[in-house]
């Protein structure tokens, strides 16, 4: 809590990420820490969500509120993420993607998580949730390997599939010419598949599909 005290003594308007996380863990400072969080990160997240929503400002504001609700609940009871900035971007994009997928599936139980699992974090993970966690961890490991090969591969894939950027936006943001971009993405996709098959969880899953498809 030392970092938080120093911020208060200095009457600092800008809180560091450590101060925000420490403040969110402390009920006495949570309100101000959350205000600092949305003042410092809200505009960028809103810009990102507005782009994902193709300019629909109302929808983007709804998603920002939902994302920051999740951030509030998580930061109040869990250890600070490695990078608050990266974590907030992840929460916002995931909230938006879940929303888009849910509208596409129109299934009330799609991606719904039992309350006890996420909010309380006391219940033992179910088999299904455990397997999803294993899958996410495997994909995370593949992404790290991909990033080690060429950091641009990961960035391009995440920008296209998570940030919902079109090719023009990716080209402008990364400085890669549009003509080259398709080749880069093709290579990134091919390497992603090769590395994924080296992960036991994903390889086993694929073997299962093949067995299912067999007459």
């Amino acid at each position, binding site marked *: 809590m030392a970092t938080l005290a120093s911020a208060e003594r200095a009457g600092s308007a800008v809180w560091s990420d450590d101060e925000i996380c420490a403040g969110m863990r402390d009920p006495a400072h949570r309100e101000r820490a959350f205000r600092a969080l949305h003042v410092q990160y809200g505009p960028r997240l809103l810009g*990102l969500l507005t782009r994902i929503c193709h300019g629909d400002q109302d929808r983007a504001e709804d998603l920002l509120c939902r994302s920051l609700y999740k951030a509030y609940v998580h930061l109040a009871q869990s250890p600070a993420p490695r990078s608050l900035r990266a974590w907030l971007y992840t929460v916002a994009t995931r909230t938006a993607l879940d929303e888009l997928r849910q509208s596409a599936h129109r299934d009330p139980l799609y991606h719904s998580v039992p309350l006890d699992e996420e909010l309380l974090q006391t219940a033992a993970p179910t088999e299904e949730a455990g397997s999803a966690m294993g899958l996410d961890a495997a994909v995370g490991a593949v992404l790290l390997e991909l990033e080690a090969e060429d950091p641009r591969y990961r960035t391009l894939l995440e920008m296209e599939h998570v940030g919902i950027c079109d090719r023009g936006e990716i080209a402008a943001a990364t400085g890669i010419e549009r003509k080259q971009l398709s080749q880069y993405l093709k290579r990134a996709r091919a390497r992603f598949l090769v590395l994924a098959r080296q992960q036991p969880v994903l390889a086993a899953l694929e073997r299962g599909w093949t067995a299912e498809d067999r007459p």
Partner: protein
Amino acid sequence: MMEHDTEPLEPNDERLWELLTSCLGNEELGAETVSTLEASTAAPPLSPGLKSRLGRVARQAEADLEFATTLEKHRQRATLGSYLTFLRGKAEWTVSETAKRVRLEFQWLADLERDALAPTEIPARRLAELLKRLKGSLEMVERLLPSTIQAPRQIATSGRDSLYRRGSSTGQGRWSEPPDAPPAQENPEYREQLHAVERLREQLRALW
């Protein structure tokens, strides 16, 4: 949504690719991705209306944390009824007082709080009004709506040759079945209530 000017994949690759892309974003985004997204995204200022809405979000999230702690303390199941009871308790209103203030039938509210109403018996407008007055969060309610489903998910198929009985050795609440018993079928009433939950969720969002 996305451009696909890359070559089509083999069916096996396509299936794996779909799975992988659906998992992207479940793990924390890469540092370079975040920096690139940040650099290429505008940062519009938050309007005073949005700032005040975020203040409400904080108060609701704080109340929901308290609700979670209360449930844990009393080892209660999280349901829509338990959430409404918690919010009403926080507002220090009795059931009859709440019914009067929100212009609801006493019995309907009492039934809702004891989780005795199926989603088809919960009008969205009435629920939205109640939740707003009790300062509940839409996020929590959306998570709890499936708890209003009353119908069992599956029903046993009955037939002359079927034999279902409580098995003394199979544990409480479990049924022993003959080896050739027909598989249980999904209950159509369950499916109907599932769709009612979805309609309710959509209507609540629209009314929020």
